[in-house]
């Protein structure tokens, strides 16, 4: 299949994305957020909660005098380390319990502080690198089945039930397991602690839950002879912290979009831009594949109309990702099968869109989301729509394939739903395994024309965004029909300007795509 797209237009789009992202990157470089700072603490080994159940990173950051915050939390914390000689974890506890106050060490020389911190920074980087090496070893010993990688969600609200469901799904053919988060978590400005058994529409993302699930999947991987990946959500107000936890617990992918929280969770855009950068830097280093959320445009607005915005967002997400150091093979750009099933030739449009992304981002592990919006309580029809989605995916060589559930409109998946869904994908992708290789698209046909139109409209849209600036474009509702103000939304109070001598020891070490030397 070849859409014969205009390669110059693609180049132009990439250039425009560069122009759009550059000013935002300047903003990012000049700012930090509470969550970035808490992530630094977590990286250093701070974890746990106070007797009032406040997570230690929050308690510590709250203890940093406001004027100090602009220089980053690392420095005051390092000073205390240098003075007390405690391990970061122990120091965290002391501070949180009020037995130690950061102000006391204000006068400690910076050099001493930096010196004291260095080995903990090394330790953190080493810990993440070890996880990365482990993953590489797993993949070498227990290779996955060829893509599309079948991906399913578990979402009972209880991590122990989720564990049962995840292992069952792996046995039924799943290659990636996502633990969906509880409805409200993304709006919490802290990360819950410990194993959890109560959630709505999902299970809380906590480091303990990550570890429980990773252990269960490692055991399953060994039995199945193929590595089963684990993923979660670095989104919401704690994006960077989740990235740290994921890196520590060897998650393999993270939902980690540069604009999703802004548009779909009403999180402040400045907060999101800064947070996504730091979390992506971490993901790059940890070898975690990010998944972006363009699919969400299609659930709130018309899928046929939004196609150019999806593509534009993919270019922007790619650009942000590159700037954070992510290589192409860690950038799982998103798309979804959301065109009205009752639209004549809708399948042709879907093929056009999926193939377009494939040709424009040849090295990206594309993430393909299933039909959700047009799913109804008719599980029989739903199963068919999912089948056409599965067919499109295998035809166009998508990589990360979220399996659609026949019960999408009804409840978070039952164990049996997941089995049916995986069977659907396995059947379609086997019976039509090489169909994509067998066919050429008619020049000037519906599919080709549609792809060309989408690309041209995307270029026009990017022109507009570049002209007005990304933040203004979002305010003008150019994406997903949703308007957000630059200083509106949740979490804006957690964004602050960096002082001239701001210090972030991890940024300094330029966490990048390369393996640690």
């Amino acid at each position, binding site marked *: 299949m070849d859409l014969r797209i205009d390669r110059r237009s693609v180049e132009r789009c990439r250039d425009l994305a560069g122009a759009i992202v550059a000013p935002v990157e300047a903003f990012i470089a000049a700012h930090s957020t509470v969550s970035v700072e808490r992530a630094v603490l977590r990286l250093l080994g701070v974890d746990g909660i106070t007797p009032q159940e406040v997570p230690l990173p929050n308690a510590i950051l709250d203890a940093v005098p406001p004027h100090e915050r602009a220089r980053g939390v690392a420095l005051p914390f390092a000073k205390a380390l240098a003075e007390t000689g405690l391990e970061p974890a122990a120091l965290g506890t002391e501070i949180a319990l009020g037995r130690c106050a950061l102000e006391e060490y204000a006068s400690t020389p910076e050099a001493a502080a930096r010196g004291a911190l260095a080995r903990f920074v090394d330790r953190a980087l080493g810990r993440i690198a070890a996880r990365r090496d482990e993953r590489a070893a797993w993949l070498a010993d227990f290779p996955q089945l060829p893509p599309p990688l079948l991906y399913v969600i578990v979402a009972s609200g209880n991590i122990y039930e989720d564990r049962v469901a995840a292992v*069952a799904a792996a*046995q039924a053919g799943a290659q990636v397991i996502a633990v969906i988060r509880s409805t409200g978590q993304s709006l919490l400005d802290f990360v819950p602690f410990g194993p959890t058994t109560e959630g*709505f*529409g999902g299970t809380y993302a906590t480091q303990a839950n990550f570890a429980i699930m990773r252990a269960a999947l490692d055991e399953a991987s060994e039995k199945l002879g193929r590595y089963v990946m684990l993923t979660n959500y670095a989104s919401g107000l704690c994006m960077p912290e989740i990235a740290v936890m994921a890196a520590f617990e060897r998650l393999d992918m993270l939902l980690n979009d540069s604009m999703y929280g802004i548009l779909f969770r009403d999180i402040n855009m400045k907060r999101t831009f800064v947070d996504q950068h730091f979390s992506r830097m971490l993901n790059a280093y940890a070898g975690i594949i990010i998944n972006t959320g363009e699919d969400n445009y299609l659930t709130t607005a018309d899928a046929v109309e939004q196609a150019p915005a999806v593509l534009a967002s993919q270019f922007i997400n790619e650009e942000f990702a590159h700037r954070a150091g992510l290589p192409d093979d860690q950038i799982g750009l998103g798309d979804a099968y959301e065109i009205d099933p009752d639209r004549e030739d809708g399948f042709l449009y879907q093929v056009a869109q999926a193939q377009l992304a494939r040709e424009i981002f040849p090295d990206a592990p594309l993430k393909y989301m299933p039909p959700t919006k047009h799913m109804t*309580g008719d599980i029989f029809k739903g199963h068919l729509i999912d089948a056409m989605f599965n067919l499109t995916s295998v035809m166009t060589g998508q990589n990360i394939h979220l399996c659609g559930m026949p019960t999408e409109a009804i409840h*978070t998946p039952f164990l*049996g739903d997941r*089995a049916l869904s995986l069977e659907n994908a396995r059947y379609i992708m086997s019976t039509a395994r090489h169909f994509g290789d067998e066919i050429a698209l008619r020049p000037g046909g519906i599919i080709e024309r549609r792809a060309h139109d989408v690309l041209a409209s995307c270029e026009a849209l990017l022109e507009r965004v570049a002209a007005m600036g990304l933040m203004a474009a979002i305010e003008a509702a150019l994406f997903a029909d949703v308007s957000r103000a630059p200083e509106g939304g949740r979490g804006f109070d957690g964004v602050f300007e960096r002082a001239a001598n701001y210090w972030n020891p991890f940024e300094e070490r330029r966490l990048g795509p390369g393996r640690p030397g």
Partner: protein
Amino acid sequence: MTKLVGPFGDTRDDGKVQLSFTLPVDWSEAADEAARQLAGKMGFRDVQVVEGRPIASGFSFFVIYATSAQAVDVDGIVAPSAGAHAMSMEQIDALVHERVGRKIRVAGACIGTDAHTVGIDAILNMKGYKGDYGLERYHEFETHNLGSQVAVEELVRFTKERRIDALLASQAVTQKGSDIRNFTALSELLEAENVRDNVVLICGGPRVTNLLAGELGYDAGFGRGTLPSQVAAFIAVTLAERLRQGRPHW
């Protein structure tokens, strides 16, 4: 006159039903038999386990066809649809103009931590749903869409402040009964604040039925496929009627 009807396979009154479920057991012929007996315990006869297979270690999936002797009296069922008033936007505006004599103040939100605004937006936004304009487009409605994840306290405060005539709450997430809990919290708070009678109270969402709404103390409930004009008509007719009866209002 009662008209008893039961499931229909290919012949009247054959009672044929399809079931599927998962059992937490490894598959074996005994598991098929367990599924058969289980369906028998559920009250079905002629149980045929047409499919039984392992779906994971410790879990099996079954498809069953069976006969049920149950029937219901369909004519005896009263499920008054809240969307029964078939009126166009123009007719509704005219009715409000004539019988209410002022704009109706409407507020809607997705309550609790629910962020599924597409449904309530479909009812409220200008654009509407399936070619049927939303309430914002009506001349005789003053519409406030408070968006998603709105706490019930916030919504009640707004209602009192703006003397809202019709209050619309939406819920899509139903896991562990969170929708019921949020809807109940809203109606109880309105009662507690003594403003329940001042509003036409409406809930909606994919799992909502008008009957359920009644049980929860709402004036109406709207489920999947609702069109904005159905909601607008219900509000207009209900409010006009209340005013005619001289019932208390803001």
